């Protein structure tokens, strides 16, 4: 939800390391929540700016997982990938390597998927076919309900 961005971020993990320049590395059963946003992974790195505000969350997992309720009457957006970058100021989620994203019954898979939280749009990238890449972007769209 748009209001998620104003909500505090809660983090749970088995252990953590707070580094000098405001970087926090959480490891083991990591769960990050902010309103309806939820990110899980086995290792999550939290980056903060000079004022101590969190500006980036990077989750690694097998897979890492992201979910969010975009609007009250819509289904959860769910994404899975080896690496998930939650770019807070840009309001963008990047799902990298074996990326999968489910939105309103539609399914996207590819090498990398960028989800724009504001516009709720999905950009997906596969391996460039010129380079003989095997993983193309795949979209499975459900019939729209109005038909």
């Amino acid at each position, binding site marked *: 939800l748009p209001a998620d961005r*104003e909500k*505090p971020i809660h*983090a749970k993990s088995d252990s953590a390391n*707070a580094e*000098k320049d405001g970087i*926090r590395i*959480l490891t083991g059963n990591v769960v990050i929540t902010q309103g309806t946003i939820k990110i899980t992974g086995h290792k999550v790195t939290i980056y903060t700016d000079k004022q101590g*505000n969190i500006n980036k969350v990077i989750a690694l997992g097998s897979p890492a997982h992201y979910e969010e309720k975009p609007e009250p009457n819509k289904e959860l957006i769910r994404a899975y990938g080896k690496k998930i970058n939650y770019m807070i100021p840009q309001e963008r989620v990047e799902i990298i390597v074996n990326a999968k994203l489910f939105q309103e019954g539609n399914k996207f898979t590819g090498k990398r998927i960028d989800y724009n939280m504001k516009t709720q749009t999905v950009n997906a990238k596969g391996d460039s076919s010129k380079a003989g890449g095997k993983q193309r972007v795949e979209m499975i769209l459900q019939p729209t309900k109005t038909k």
Partner: protein
Amino acid sequence: MGFKRITTLILLLILGYGLFTFLNQPDAFNLTAPTSDKKEDTAISPDFFMESPVITQYTAQGERDYIVVSEKISHFPHNDISLIDQPDILITRKQSSDWHTTSRQGRILPGGDVMELWDNVVVREQKTTGNPGMIITTEFLTVYAEQNQAKTKRPVTIKTVNSVVNAVGMNTYLDEERVELLSNVRGTYEVQD
């Protein structure tokens, strides 16, 4: 059984229990932390004490390493331990933050390099930039002055400008300004607009 005999019996029991615990007193040089907040056996008197002392330790380069201020420090010859009443310790560093640590009780272990603090331990980071640093609170902390480290196995709370983190167990590496939280980490980070 008359009242007198009961009181004698109770007296014997107390004496017996006292003797039992005295004989089973842990090894006097046992460096393990006091698991409960039991008072050090002050029946054995200190060989020296200082009231309202200020102790300043310098480095080989002549720079101030740390200052310890206290209400009272008493040294006990039988175990070479010094008890500190209301320790107030300022560890100063040129390149990184200063660390200001206070607690109600503390003791310096034999050799003088290891200090144990307990009872409302508060560690305040004083950043060179003047920005507010982190505040760490716990009930027990061991400070290793030589290695510039502080460790505990107890629950800790770490507050910064916009976050509160709770965990169980912590290792702090003062020179690297790095804090390692060992288990059960729960954090809340406020978001600025």
